[in-house]
């Protein structure tokens, strides 16, 4: 069976006489009614996989409603986990194992299962009412509708109730643990111990010993049941992933973002202030930072999005690392205040965890359609740094860098992530704060004889940060145009032109302080696949597969968008075609055409609230290579 981990030797068990399927990676998806506990099953599965030494990526896929009508398609909530022995770049196009707790789950998610996938269903949930609500005319378990799959019809509800009979819990509580029955079956399929999850129950339900006992019993019952099922007689074997040595943890993008800011606050010595308003899918950043008062983080849950950013601007003026977190519609509301931060030249990070738009759009689905808004969505000539994280884990690094650039260059920075990165999780190698790059905000010393509100550092063009309370530096700033150097209100035409140019040059100069753009693959070839933000994984995998087939394709994934890295033009010049793939109608490609006119740009776009699949990207690469 699986190799023992040195640190967690008890995770992998040696068991049974099952057939063994050797795999590099396996995708498991848990789906059920929202409220069925699918997010928890997925999380526990991920933790156990990580303890077993596997790399992983997760993708929660849930509806906007908290509890949509029971047993309907609208109420289906899912959690997909991709585990493997190699570096896991994506959450997987389709799953190898689909756990479906009711007919609606099967109906809505069968398209995400690979042909021949193992399908574990709770046959007790396929009653007439549930079938009707999900739109099945006939029970698919009784017809050949699922004949292309390895279907395991398990009486999960019934066996869950039997497992806890006699311990003295009510039927409702008993039924709520049926997700653990399915999880137990999955653990059997992978040959894993139940210990990690059992420990979790003990911690999570500390004050409810009966609930702990019920969950443990049901998990074990599911595990034991799987042993008896012929359709599950094969077990997966995944050896430990080859990963860079170090200490790892599982982390979601939103938590990584919050922690990146905390690290930047500590490293820069600037106290953290977050002004924010709850909005899906960005709220977890607010929730996470609110937990860390022991690190001095001040978190202000404002009355609206505007107050969120305006309070952050006030805090920035006083010398805090000022942040506001939001999602698409919230960014719209913050536009005017971003302009205030631009003209007052105050450091501020605006995180936009993008979701499907326009308007309320698809709150729980992911898109990259706010790029135009981030770049251009303000009145006046109003430049700000725009950058994007690309994995759940590197949200930590890019949040840190956003804070560093904001403070060192005295400018707002818009950091784009998305719901997919924010809620998805990944194994994350734990860094040391001391190893992060230094942050040196240009704080003016008391009685600084050179200080003028808009006198600039000639290298960065950043003005100095003069904090209230400091002797000799009293000054006023505001939203009216300011006189160069002195900062008095000025509507002089020549001065306005000069200030517009200076604000733009200051942001453009940031290009000299960011890393050069890298190319994955050869430096020249027939095609360069260009992506940005949360689409790195599938693009990388598609390009790798095309390269393995001998295609002259490389990949450039952008993290810095405004300004673009200085070597962008040089990189583009060495490829016959630049294929820009993004989850919008072509915003980055238009921006590239505007800033880097010349190359033969092609584009591939999808706006369905879903990530790219490796398969569709690969198909597009092939098609476009043939077209030329």
């Amino acid at each position, binding site marked *: 069976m699986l190799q023992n*981990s*040195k*640190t*967690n030797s008890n995770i992998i068990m040696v068991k049974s006489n099952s057939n063994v399927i050797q795999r590099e990676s396996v995708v498991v998806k848990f789906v059920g009614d929202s409220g069925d506990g699918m997010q928890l099953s997925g999380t526990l599965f991920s*933790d156990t996989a*990580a*303890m077993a*030494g596997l790399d992983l990526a997760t993708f929660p896929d849930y509806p906007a409603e908290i509890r949509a009508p029971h047993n309907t398609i609208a109420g289906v909530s899912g959690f997909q986990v991709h585990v493997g022995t190699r570096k896991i770049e994506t959450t997987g196009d389709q799953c190898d194992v689909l756990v479906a707790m009711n007919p609606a789950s099967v109906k809505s998610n069968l398209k995400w299962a690979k042909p021949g996938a193992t399908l574990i269903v709770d046959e007790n949930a396929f009653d007439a009412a549930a079938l009707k609500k999900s739109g099945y005319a006939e029970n698919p378990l009784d017809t050949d509708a699922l004949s292309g799959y390895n279907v395991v019809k398990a009486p999960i509800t019934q066996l869950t109730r039997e497992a806890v009979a006699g311990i003295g819990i009510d039927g409702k509580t008993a039924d709520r643990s049926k997700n653990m029955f399915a999880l137990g079956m999955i653990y059997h399929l992978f040959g894993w111990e139940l210990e990690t999850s059992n420990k979790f129950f003990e911690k999570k339900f500390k004050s409810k010993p009966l609930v702990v006992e019920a969950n443990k019993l049901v998990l074990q019952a599911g595990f034991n049941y799987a042993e008896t099922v012929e359709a599950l007689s094969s077990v997966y074997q995944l050896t430990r992933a080859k990963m860079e*040595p*170090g*200490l*790892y*943890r599982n982390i979601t993008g939103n938590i990584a973002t919050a*922690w990146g800011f*905390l*690290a930047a606050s*500590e490293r820069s010595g600037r*106290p953290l*202030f977050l*002004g924010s308003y709850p909005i899906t899918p960005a709220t977890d950043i607010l929730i996470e930072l609110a937990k*860390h*008062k*022991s*690190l*001095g983080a*001040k978190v*202000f849950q*404002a*009355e*609206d999005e*505007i*107050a969120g950013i*305006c*309070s*952050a*601007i*006030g*805090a920035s003026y*006083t*010398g*805090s690392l*000022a942040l506001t977190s939001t999602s698409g519609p919230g960014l719209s509301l913050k536009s*005017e*205040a971003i302009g*205030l931060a631009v003209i007052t030249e105050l450091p501020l990070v605006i995180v936009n965890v993008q979701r499907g738009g326009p308007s309320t759009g698809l709150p729980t689905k992911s898109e990259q359609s706010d790029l135009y808004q981030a770049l251009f969505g303000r009145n006046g000539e109003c430049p700000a740094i725009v950058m994007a994280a690309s994995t759940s884990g590197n949200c930590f690094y890019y949040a840190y860098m956003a804070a560093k650039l904001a403070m060192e260059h005295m400018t707002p920075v818009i950091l784009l992530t998305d719901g997919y990165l924010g809620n998805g999780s990944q194994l994350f190698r*734990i860094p*040391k704060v001391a190893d992060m790059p230094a942050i040196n905000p240009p704080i003016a010393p008391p009685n600084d004889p050179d200080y003028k509100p808009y006198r600039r550092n000639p290298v960065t063009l950043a003005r100095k940060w003069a904090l*209230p*309370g*400091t*002797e*000799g530096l*009293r*000054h*006023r*700033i*505001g*939203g009216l145009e300011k006189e160069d150097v002195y900062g*008095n*209100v000025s509507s002089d035409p020549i001065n306005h032109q000069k200030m517009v140019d200076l604000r733009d040059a200051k942001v453009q100069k940031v290009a000299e302080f960011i890393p050069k753009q890298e190319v994955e693959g050869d430096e020249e070839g027939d095609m360069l696949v260009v992506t940005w933000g949360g689409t790195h994984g599938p693009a990388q995998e598609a390009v790798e597969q095309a390269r393995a087939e001998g295609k002259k394709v490389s990949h450039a994934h952008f993290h810095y968008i405004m300004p673009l890295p200085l070597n962008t033009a040089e990189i583009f010049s060495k490829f016959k075609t630049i294929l820009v793939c993004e989850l919008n109608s072509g915003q980055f490609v238009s921006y590239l055409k505007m800033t880097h006119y010349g190359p033969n740009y092609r584009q591939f776009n999808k706006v369905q609230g879903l990530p790219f699949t490796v398969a569709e990207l690969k198909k597009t690469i092939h098609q476009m290579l043939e077209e030329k």
Partner: protein
Amino acid sequence: MINPRNYTVERSSVELSKEDFVSDQMVKWCPGCGAHAILSSVANVFPKLGYRKENIMMVSGIGCSSRFPYYVNTYGIHGIHGRAAAISSGVKIANPHLSVWMTTGDGDSLAIGGNHFIHIIRRNIDINILLFNNQIYGLTKGQYSPTTPMGSVTKTSPMGTIEHPFNPGELVMGAQGTFFARVVDTNPRLMTEVMFEAARHDGTSIIEILQNCVIFADKTHEAITGKDVRDDRQIILRNGFPMIFGKEKNKGIRLNGTRLEVVTIGENGITETDIMVHDMYERDPGIHLMLAKMSYPNFPVAMGVIRSANYPTYDDLIMEQIAFAKENSKIKNVDDLLNSGETWEIK
């Protein structure tokens, strides 16, 4: 002079004067504008607060009132329309060692910024808000505002407004305000007094200043501020004193059942003992609300500090939570945080 509950704001080691706060900017309000008198009162008050001059900060929104920070030499932000309360909140929470003063108007705080206005009050963040109420939009040249009396003809209400105006005092009490005062721009002595009281109060202090706009709403408050009528149409409330007013000092406010009424001392057996004594520190806002709502012609309009109730401030409470968390949490730095919970070592 000031005796705040806690000495969060650093004290000045030297005596300050008006000159310490003079700005080099030209004051660009219209001649005769009530804002000049407010500026003059602020210039008198700031040096006497006892705070270091670097620890005073001014924040404003948009409108005539909001040009104020340019005219006082302190740290300051001239913000965007309606958002001064939100900006001030961030300033004070981030740095509680600052004495924060906000200037705003009836349009800025009661229309576009209404949401921030009620929430800063509800949170009781320690900020002093000077609400210039001239019942008109001045800087955009004469449109009606949320305090314009119903029926007023303005540029955007050629047939008279058909909106019920806000009484700012009522709004403040409704938002659980802990401090509310009202003054007229032509009474600099009372204005100065009230500003000191606002500074002394820990929490959000609202001073409604009935201000005259000479251009677009001239004499809008004339019915109660006119020299010959003001003694009969205003009552200046003083804590611990009976609510007596009038040219002859013979009128008073009495609580009759659940309502206030105006009575005349010496008539119908009324003596001074029947007159209510003002208690601005009372936590129950009931009487304060009735006083704030008194309006001409049935009542004199209440001036001075109407309410100054003692409640914890947001800025104090957040500092207490941080101190508690720092003492009790195992997570002392970000490395502790990164290594907390489940981790796995890969060799």
